[in-house]
């Protein structure tokens, strides 16, 4: 009889332990900071990048991208056109920030077709991403979409 009681107690303890493991131990830790940092990183990087005044005739990155998507009439002091200069500037900035901090990313600027970007840096993310999309209006011809995906 006592053995039966002991068996019931053992079963009850096992059930309790299963609940504890299910709800307490296997609970995913909330990573608030990682989410915040990734969100800030992607949106702030694009916003600051687009505002940056470049060494190409003191034009900002937005103006260079606009020219790159339209006439490609700008030639900078180093002989590069707007697309080449914008790409070089973005590459330098990412090498000193995202690459240094070990964050993988994919940066793209495109007009209508995302598969044919005017500017592309980094590699596509394999897992979760923290995307940011900015629009740069072009006079009479739609928008340039500037997209930065930070891989989590």
């Amino acid at each position, binding site marked *: 009889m*006592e*053995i039966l*009681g*002991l068996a019931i*107690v*053992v079963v009850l*303890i096992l059930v*309790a*332990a299963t609940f*504890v493991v299910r709800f*307490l*131990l296997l609970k995913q*830790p*909330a*990573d*608030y*900071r990682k989410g*915040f*940092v990734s969100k*800030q*990183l992607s949106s*702030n*990087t694009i*916003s*600051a*990048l687009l*505002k*940056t*005044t*470049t*060494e190409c005739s*003191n034009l*900002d990155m937005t103006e260079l991208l606009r020219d790159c998507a339209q006439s490609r009439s700008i030639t900078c002091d180093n002989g590069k056109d707007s697309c080449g200069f914008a790409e070089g*500037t973005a590459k*330098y*900035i990412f090498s*000193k*920030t995202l690459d240094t*901090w070990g964050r993988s990313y994919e940066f793209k600027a495109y007009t209508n077709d995302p598969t044919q970007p005017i500017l592309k840096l980094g590699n596509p993310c394999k897992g979760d991403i923290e995307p940011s999309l900015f629009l740069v209006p072009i006079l009479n011809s739609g928008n340039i979409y500037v997209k930065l995906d930070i891989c989590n």
Partner: protein
Amino acid sequence: MKKKSQIQIGETIAVLFVFFILIVIGFVFYLNVVKGNLESEKEDSSEMHSIELAQRVMFLPELQCSDDIVKEKTNCIDILKLKSAEVVMKSSENEIYYYDLLEFSEVSVSQIYPVEPNPLNLNIYSRPTKDYKKILSTNIPVSLYNPADKKYSFGVLNITTYSK
């Protein structure tokens, strides 16, 4: 008859002994789980605190760019304000005010682009502590605006928080 009763009492004692051992093991296990949860909550709290401090710094009127003094621009630091803020935030008379705001942390701003021989690199608040359990460093890309020539540079705001 007497012997059978003695065996039954022995059995009951053995069962009770095993039962109490199981209760003690369960209690120890429960305490460990609660302790682990408390530590995880403490870690969450220090991470939230680090976010809070980062946001405070990002929206400090002492640093933010402004249009006609009134309208403040987000994600932008005024270089002229920054240079004054360095002096103001490090002065002993404002020490308590900024400690209330930023506690044990370090705030610095560095220019990434354009490449210059002497790029801007300022540590505007520094109050580290040796008595910490965790250091969290947050890098936030920002625009650095120079109102003198109306140019924007690309910079990084670094906030290091010390959690006790």
